């Protein structure tokens, strides 16, 4: 057990760091190199395959990578999330402690909601209007567009 834990943590750190670096690079070197590399990084886990395959067929494959939608734009937050995702995913992965049909967590959902706005801020300005940012007043993009990233 403890052995598996340590192993998990290790994989996690490696994972997190690897991805973290991958992202850091992206910050400066946008483009195909990244678009191809990074989803692959997520693909290191076969359990991400479904999303990856879906993403390949999605309207966003050419314009957004996993991290565009699943990590905050803000650099620090992004790195933190990566580290944590990288860690927990690998941890859960190694321990096998997760459900077959993975469900997005509330926190990740918030990040994704924001990711939409990062790219589509202008187009939804009118509908967002002057609505306060409290989540009860925010429009939930995912309610209608939950399949843009990877078809469901």
């Amino acid at each position, binding site marked *: 057990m403890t052995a598996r834990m340590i192993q998990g943590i290790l994989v996690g750190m490696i994972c997190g760091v690897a991805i973290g670096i991958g992202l850091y690079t992206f910050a400066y070197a946008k483009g195909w190199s990244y678009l191809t590399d990074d989803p692959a990084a997520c693909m290191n886990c076969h359990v991400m395959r479904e999303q990856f395959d879906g993403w390949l067929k999605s309207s966003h494959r050419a314009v957004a990578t996993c991290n565009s939608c699943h990590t*905050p*734009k*803000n650099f620090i*937050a992004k790195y933190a999330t990566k580290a944590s995702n990288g860690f927990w995913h690998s941890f859960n992965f190694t321990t096998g402690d997760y459900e077959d049909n993975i469900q997005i967590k509330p*926190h990740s959902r*918030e*990040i994704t909601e*924001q990711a939409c*706005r990062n790219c589509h*801020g*202008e*187009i*939804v*300005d*009118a*509908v*967002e*209007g*002057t*609505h306060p*940012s409290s989540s*009860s*007043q*925010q*429009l*939930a993009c995912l*309610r*209608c*567009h939950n*399949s843009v990233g990877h*078809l469901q």
Partner: protein
Amino acid sequence: LMNIFERKQEARNPFYRVVELNDQTDDPAVWGKNFPLQYDDYKRTTDQVRTHFGGSEALPRTPTKADPRSVVAQSKIEEDPRLKIMWAGYAFAKDFREERGHAYMLDDQTYTERQQVVKQPGTCIQCHASVYVPYKKLGNGDLIAGFEKMNQMPFFEARKLVTHPVSCIDCHDPTTMQLRVTRPGFIEGIAAYKASQGIKNYDVNKDATRQEMRAYVCGQCHVEYYFKGPEKRLVYPWAKGLKVEQIQAYYDEAQFKDWTHADTGAPVLKAQHPEFEMWNQGIHARSGVTCADCHMPYKREGALKISDHHVRSPVLNINRACQTCHKWSEDELKARVENIQQRTFELRNVAMDALMDLIKDLKAAKGAGKTDNELAMAQGFQRKAQFYLDFVEAENSTGFHAPQEASRILGESIDFSRKGQIALRDGKTAPSQTAKP
């Protein structure tokens, strides 16, 4: 995470203020200066296109002095004359048409022949005109006070106080453009409903989420209602809940009747457009899908996306209304709607026949000299059967908003009608107890 949102706030420049809007601006044309896109769509609610069970047909007519309308929608009581028997002795037996776009609401209410057979109160106007500003004026700044005053006026006197059909100010706060509920009937109705759920002093404009408001602004009018007491207060009968049996129980307890059936003497009720109530029983409501999502879907206008203010049948706009959530072809989605509606319509016809049989029998019994006392039980069944049937008949989605619930209600209606017939044959005279509300 919060700070990200905040930064986003600053970034926004929602719209250009060409004109200043305030709480007295009820002319949509003025709002249209700031929001030309929404205004243009809003004006298009004059379009009339028929779908299989909805939309509306534009029937030309020669205007008269009494009724200057040159176009009306098809008559429902001519399409199914059984409706005249169900409503015998009530204004609806005189004139009842398919509803059409918002642009017509004020005229259709003013000129319906129903106005010629009964004196209607000013209450009617809450849902057929932009009453927010007039209410405020009438109540010297107090919305509710103005509402109460107008309710007590005769219709045609009150009619003089309004000019526009539902307008921007009826759904929007002129300064923030956020949705707000302006109808006393809904404000009080939803509070009564929430109270029945154990939520005290619910204030819709404070406590509702934005998503809820996308349904509540429609719920202001697309609901069952009645006029309470001599002061003709507009009340939504939700104090026990939104389901048909709960509303029936509410009316029974209040011993309310809309009219006495001309053929049978039964104290009957008229259900009216309970779209909000039925939607609430459906899977879409349960999934947080609101009226606006389907009837005012987002549309792309150049670099912006806006809510389509051409409020209409989603069947005429499937791509935007349905396909973001349902990846089926337009034809398939249309077929799904009609499949649900057809099933509802067929059972509705079975229920209608059952009711006709009961009314025929009651009429005969009355003709044969039976007293209302002797008929009380059967009349009680008619009251229920008719309200349940009308609850689906008057609901304008032909079952789509809540398919299983619509069929369940019709099933119960059939049971009530037939039990009424049996009560007559068995000479049961006690007031209907067995019929569960």
